[in-house]
């Protein structure tokens, strides 16, 4: 008796978006080189059939830069085998993927040092250098227990 698994039919799901998306990446790279304008593609925002996200990532491959961030959960930034095309994957603290972006940029936004924190760093480094320049503060001499000494003298006299 035939079972469902025995029926020789395979269903291949395809959204038709894989090639379109790869072409969009190619155009974005051209735009970056021509005008310096960076682009971001949200992989979760593109309708893809099961397995197609993996196909895109496989096509992009891995390049020579890999970075790990820890900002509200781990994130990974990988340059693909195409320079200027980056895959940025954000995870929540429990490791679940909460976003996957393809950034076509010289450096992904999240990799840049942030201005507001750089300003804080400038103040902090100045404070720490000022502390290094100031003479070491000598520890105060231990206070003498004059009351106890006076009491001991009184007892001696008795």
């Amino acid at each position, binding site marked *: 008796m035939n079972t469902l698994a025995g029926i020789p039919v395979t269903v291949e799901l395809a959204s038709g978006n894989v090639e379109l998306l790869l072409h969009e990446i190619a155009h974005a790279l051209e735009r970056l080189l021509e005008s310096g304008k960076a682009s971001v*593609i*949200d992989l979760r925002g593109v309708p893809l059939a099961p397995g197609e996200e993996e196909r895109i990532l496989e096509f992009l491959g891995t390049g020579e830069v890999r970075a790990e961030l820890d900002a*509200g*959960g781990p994130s990974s930034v990988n340059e693909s085998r195409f320079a200027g095309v980056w895959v940025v994957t954000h995870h929540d603290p429990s490791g679940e993927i909460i976003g996957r972006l393809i950034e076509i940029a010289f450096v992904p*936004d999240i990799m840049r040092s942030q201005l*507001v*924190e750089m300003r804080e760093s400038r103040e902090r480094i100045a404070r720490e250098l000022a502390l290094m320049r100031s003479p070491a503060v000598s520890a105060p001499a231990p206070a003498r227990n004059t009351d106890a000494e006076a009491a001991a003298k009184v007892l001696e006299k008795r």
Partner: protein
Amino acid sequence: MRDVLVGDYLRSRGVTRRGLLKFCAATASWMALPPTLAQEIAAALEKARRPSVIWLPFQECTGCTESITRADSPTLEGLIFEAISLDYQHTLQAAAGEAAEEARRNAMQENWGKYLLAVDGSIPLGNPGYSTIAGVSNVDLLREAAKGAAVATSQAKARVSGLSARTAEAMPQESPPPP
């Protein structure tokens, strides 16, 4: 505390700007917004202040208040110290009587057109004198508070049948300038 910007507050709690950017990128993705908006969302969020909330409990069973005091995500203290500035809620606030009403009037004036108005409980319309606060009928208090609210919401409509319709009826159709 209300004057503290969200960005400064997050930094004081150890949330880096990269962490905020990541949150905004994920939020933009969930909301199907263009990913390039993440930077703009982060910039707007950093400059935001905690919104003033005026909560008017009228003829209600205090169930909403009881529920919120037992909430754990966020906790009540987390909510009122970190997310909103609860400027009037006469069951929860320490001030009473004229001091409480003055706090409400001050919050309304300072945040005219921007505060969030939360209402729960029913409002007697047939004889407004059945329920008054500081000598003001519920319906008059609601009309006054609703004039300067950015958003008004009513809770417990399942419990208090017809509240939404009555709230809508009592609400003014347009916001006049602040008193």
